[in-house]
């Protein structure tokens, strides 16, 4: 196996980090919906922390994507 194909397989493995965001963001979204249903008047604050949370949860997937891109177009 030459270096190029190994890098491509590595890129494929790197995007598996998407799993983390895929599990994390729906969890946060579901909990946010529950919280807003329970206390609609606090929806502004809940949405704020929700945005912060998904931004941080999403970071893992984005790092995987960037690593995959680096492996493909180095």
């Amino acid at each position: 196996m030459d270096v190029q194909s190994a890098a491509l397989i590595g890129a494929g493995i790197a995007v598996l980090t998407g799993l983390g965001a895929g599990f994390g963001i729906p969890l946060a979204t579901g909990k946010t919906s529950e919280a807003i249903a329970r206390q609609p008047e606090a929806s502004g604050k809940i949405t704020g922390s929700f945005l912060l949370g998904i931004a941080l949860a999403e970071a893992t997937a984005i790092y995987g994507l960037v690593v995959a891109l680096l492996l493909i177009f180095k």
Partner: protein
Amino acid sequence: MSEAAHAMTMSEKITEGMGIKTVFTIHSFGYAIPISDTVITTWIVMAILIIVAFILTRKLREIPRKPQLLLEAFIGFINDFVEEKAGHHGKDFTAFLGTIFVFLIVANLAPMLTPAGGFGFEPLFVIKPVTRDINITAALAIIVIVTVFFSSIVYKGPKGYLKSLVSPIPVMLPFNIMEYAIKPMSLCLRLFGNILGAYIIMLLIEAVVPVAIPPIAGLYFDLFDGLIQAVVFAFLSTMYIAEAIE
């Protein structure tokens, strides 16, 4: 054979779309400064922002007309948002954070201005998203972290700043220092990765199904994703500044 040739052109298309072309080079003071297409699009975005800001603020009245009402609602929204997150000192940063927010919104939505093409003829001009260039997101992230650093020194005082580095316990010192590298990196990579990812997916969709699907998918990948990322970037910058000046 023809299938392989087709796949070749598709991957070439994506590589070409991702690449950042140098349009021309400025030679001055013995340096060659390459000007890429993203820089030119940034200039266009800046021109749009300056002209719109100039037109909207030219004739301000006590009793606002329609455009001024919109402007006041927008400014009020940003003021309230920053003040809620960062306390009453946050007022000093509304102009800065509002500028970043507006710039990112216009820059992320600018690709939607590309005129329609197809049926064999190319569109007049193609605007590609600016933030797919990591240099631009890195510049924005560095601006934010430098602001965080200096505002933290100014608002806490040099002594208070040093004290905040060893809070809550002295063991946290290396981590507190590391934050100055991690925060801008995650800000920069988040924006860059999201916009580039959405852009690549749109290129793939357009290459596979050129009709009907791209406009619908574009609603999510161009409009919604661009807006969300602008909001997230401005929101995280606000949180970092709020943390620095509290």
